[in-house]
């Protein structure tokens, strides 16, 4: 795919390639970056990861398009894409990638004060400060704007009380960006966007055990937590607009920019066997594998096409919701097919009797059920597509 024609881009690509070759620790080649992204203990205990993180932080390529004064490299979007492509080509990864770079950072760049940017963006750009997202509450899931966590103006500080849930990595997070209620008389117009230090007295995060065995999500309790006045982002009661923009960034990062998805054909041949014509021996499973494989391919083509089209526009748009639903639909089906082809071995939970691959497939299948729930459920995304993309009318 010839994306650039100018010699300038080719020269930059060569520079990036050389730098990665010289600086990426070979021991990390092919490692799952989500492990480090999701587990602060694993990340802290891995000297190679720390070395790689520091080198990427020093050159600013974890957030290449952010301005230099905030820890970025001040590069163009196209150059940022080249860095991602070269990382993938070298079986490397971006060690800086986090909720901070994907969600809060872009939001602060648009809405934050200069003081907030200078305080929070550089540690995000170095992945030295972990963030969690305090949005959902027990009574506010898909209907997020019904959130109730109270934030009261005490003159010299804010006083926060309430509960958040489904907060990814809250037990390991240093800070939380939260939606809080500053006015009870207006649903959408009574929400503010607040930055809370997780070490503040009164904050408690408890992990939740999921069907996949994961303890990644937490419930977080805020009991009369005092927060400095300067931690409110944007104006008071204007948090919903900021949150909507942040959710666009989140959807964008959830579905767009994923690497190539491996074909299931080789594994299927191993597990199911082939007939005398060399086809996967189970014709029913084979037909469904083919259908899903085609959709995976067309989805990859769609990401490329939308990225090309987006070069002309600016930032994420509402079409992202349609892409997210395609992605969750296609990848959930793929996870089901992987488990199905492994048969009884695809339902192993632990122990040496199952291969690493088999146990991972079981967990991945269970985890995939969340694809259509997090980041705005399938149904909420479908509502967004209907209203904002297709212009269908509201119900009266």
């Amino acid at each position, binding site marked *: 795919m010839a994306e650039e024609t100018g010699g300038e881009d080719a020269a930059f690509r060569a520079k990036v390639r050389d730098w990665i070759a010289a600086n990426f620790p070979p021991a990390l080649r092919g490692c799952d970056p989500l492990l480090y992204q999701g587990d602060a203990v694993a990340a802290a205990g891995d000297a190679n990861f720390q070395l790689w993180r520091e080198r990427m932080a020093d050159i600013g390529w974890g957030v290449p398009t952010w301005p230099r004064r905030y820890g970025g490299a001040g590069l163009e979007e196209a150059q940022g894409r080249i860095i991602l492509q070269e990382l993938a080509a070298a079986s490397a990864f971006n060690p800086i990638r986090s909720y901070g770079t994907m969600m809060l950072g872009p939001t602060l760049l648009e809405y934050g004060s200069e003081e907030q940017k200078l305080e929070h963006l550089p540690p995000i750009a170095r992945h030295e400060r972990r963030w969690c997202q305090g949005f959902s509450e027990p009574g506010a899931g898909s209907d997020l704007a019904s959130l109730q966590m109270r934030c009261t103006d005490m003159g010299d500080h804010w006083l926060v009380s309430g509960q958040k849930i489904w907060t990814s990595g809250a037990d390991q997070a240093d800070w939380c960006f939260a939606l809080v209620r500053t006015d009870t008389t207006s649903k959408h117009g009574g929400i503010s966007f607040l930055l809370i230090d997780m070490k503040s007295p009164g904050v408690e995060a408890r992990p939740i055990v999921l069907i996949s065995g994961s303890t990644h999500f937490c419930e977080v309790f805020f009991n009369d937590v005092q927060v400095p006045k300067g931690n409110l982002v944007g104006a008071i009661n204007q948090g919903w607009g900021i949150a909507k923009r942040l959710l666009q960034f989140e959807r964008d990062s959830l579905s767009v920019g994923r690497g190539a998805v491996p074909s299931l054909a080789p594994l299927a041949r191993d597990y199911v066997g082939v007939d005398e014509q060399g086809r996967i021996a189970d014709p029913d499973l084979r037909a469904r594998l083919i259908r899903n494989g085609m959709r995976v391919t067309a989805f990859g083509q*769609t990401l490329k096409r939308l990225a*090309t089209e987006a070069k002309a526009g600016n930032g994420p748009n509402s079409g992202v919701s*349609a892409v997210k639903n395609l992605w969750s639909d296609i990848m959930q089906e793929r996870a089901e097919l992987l488990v199905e082809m492994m048969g009884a071995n695809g339902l192993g939970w632990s122990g040496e009797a199952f291969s690493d691959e088999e146990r991972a497939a079981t967990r991945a299948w269970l985890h995939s059920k969340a694809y259509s729930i997090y980041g705005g459920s399938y149904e909420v995304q479908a509502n967004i597509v209907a209203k904002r993309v297709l212009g*269908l009318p509201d119900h*009266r």
Partner: protein
Amino acid sequence: MVVLSEEQVMLRDMAAEWARERMPVTAYRKLFTGAFPLGHDPAAWADMAAMGWAGIVVPEELGGVDFGYRSLGLVLEELGKSLAASPLISSALIVATALRLAGTAEQQARWLPGIADGSVIGALALDEGPRHAPLATALTARQRGDGWQLDGLKRPVPDGMAASLFVVVARTSGGPGDGDGLTLFLVEPDAVGLARTSLDQVDARSPALLTLAGVALAGDAVLGPVGGAGVLLDRILDCGRAGIAAEMLGTASQAFETVLDYLKTRVQFGQLIGSFQALQHRAGAMFGELQLLRSAVEAALAALDVGDAEAPQLVSLAKAMAGDTLHRISNEMIQLHGGIGMTHEHDAGLYLKRARVADQSYGNAAFHRERWGRLNGF
């Protein structure tokens, strides 16, 4: 994904404007009155040829503009929106490609200028039974001195009633099912022993049933290699498949737009029916499928233009998705319009009929899923 050039944007806009003004669905509707027994409106075809569309993949020195498959796909997509009937795929895409890939200098000089200016209409005579299966070809070609004798039957032959040049796929050795032994022949419709009759299909495009009984051809009627045309035929067909997938993308997109308009205007239970969540989510799902289809079609056409070795699987992906998506949206078009969608007066039925014929053409969705699966190790 390749960004459109300025010329391609102009070509697409010109095609869109012309199709809107000259070939709205009402023009297609006339085919159902029997007004155009050739399967298209000759005056409209003359317009299209005058705009250069018949020569888009023909080399410049032979009267074309050598503008590539993606460019022709843009025109086909626009024409597909209003179901505009023309021999563009048969002649300007498939037969032009056959001559370009396999023709001798004499054959190209004899036929390509006419194809490029629209005065010659080419048609591929391949299928013989109800299913697209190139290797099942049974029509025989036997050597007779320096020449050949063809015997057999072809159906359906798209644009066969209008054709002034057939590319006939014949078997020079082996039997039905064999990969080897296929040969292409250039056959003119006035050849002794050739007869054609019109097939009355649901989409009123009137393909032909061709019978060849002792049709004698000179040795120079052979197009490409004798007995080894299977790979060549696949390459030719892939161009046609990508082209009709582009047309189907246009048809599906317009069917969807028509549905959306109806959801925004039809009132029941005191509401615009487009405000009902059940219908909104169905519309959203169709929108998503259209995104995948557009990507697959553009990737297939681009692959043909650069000679990508993966073009066969990319084309099968596009044609299969076009078949599945248009099938779904054309069905939804009827259902979401309710009773009015069942009437001949409404356009929904025309989209449904054309959708099924387009799916069957050059391999339906199942054919191309199987082909994609084989090419990808399934």
